[in-house]
């Protein structure tokens, strides 16, 4: 299942629509890395609201995506992790350390706005 990627201002929004296979997640990684360059995006939101499980592979891939995009100059924020999914990740000892997370899309956009402002401030 292909994940649609929308462009909004300086940001990209990848909104996962259904349960993903491993290949779909890897495809998302490649698509995002390419689009960040194409649109010169500064931030990326990955909406995982519909994911019913985030296992070790998904965690590893989300971490890899965020680190790759950071190297491409964009900050990533993961939004929409469901309570049961978060509970299971904690049981498994899985973390998204160093990656932004937010409750939902709206909070994710606010997170990126703050992050961008901070980055600009650091430059000055």
């Amino acid at each position: 299942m292909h994940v649609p990627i929308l462009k909004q201002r300086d940001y990209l929004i990848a909104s996962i629509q259904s349960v993903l296979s491993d290949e779909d997640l890897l495809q998302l990684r490649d698509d995002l890395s390419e689009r960040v360059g194409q649109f010169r995006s500064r931030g990326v939101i990955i909406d995982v609201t519909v994911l019913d499980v985030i296992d070790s592979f998904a965690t590893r891939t989300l971490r890899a995506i965020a680190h790759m995009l950071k190297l491409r100059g964009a900050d990533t924020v993961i939004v929409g992790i469901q309570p049961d999914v978060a509970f299971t990740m904690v049981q498994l000892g899985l973390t998204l350390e160093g990656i932004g997370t937010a409750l939902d899309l709206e909070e994710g956009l606010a997170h990126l706005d703050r992050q961008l402002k901070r980055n600009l401030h650091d430059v000055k």
Partner: protein
Amino acid sequence: MSNENHVRIGSALDIVTARQMGRSMAKELGFDGAEVTLIAAAISEVSRNIVEYAKGGEIILQTLNNGCKRGLSVVARDRGPGIPDVDKAMQYGYSTRRGLGVGLPGAKLLMDDFDIVSQVGVGTTITMKKWLHGNAK
């Protein structure tokens, strides 16, 4: 839904099928949302182990009822290369590949019972169970 279901694991796509089958069986048994998610994640980890290390195998899901308690049994069976050092493979954070080393030890953490039998050159069988109300131990 029948009491026993087999899912052939040949590629990463089958992981999703096994997980969803486990999820619906667990739901039907009366597990709550968080437990259903734990079971689905455990199935995901053992199925991925089959895809990554053995060429193929199967997941057998079975509802359990021993009179006083009910639960779900998940058997992951493959005829892959086998695991030379099971104790090491069950160490959290240990991986022979690029993984996080969370898979098998993680699945054990999520379930009530976990048993692994592996023979080099023959294959690996993992049997794990989750009991309703978690009153197994």
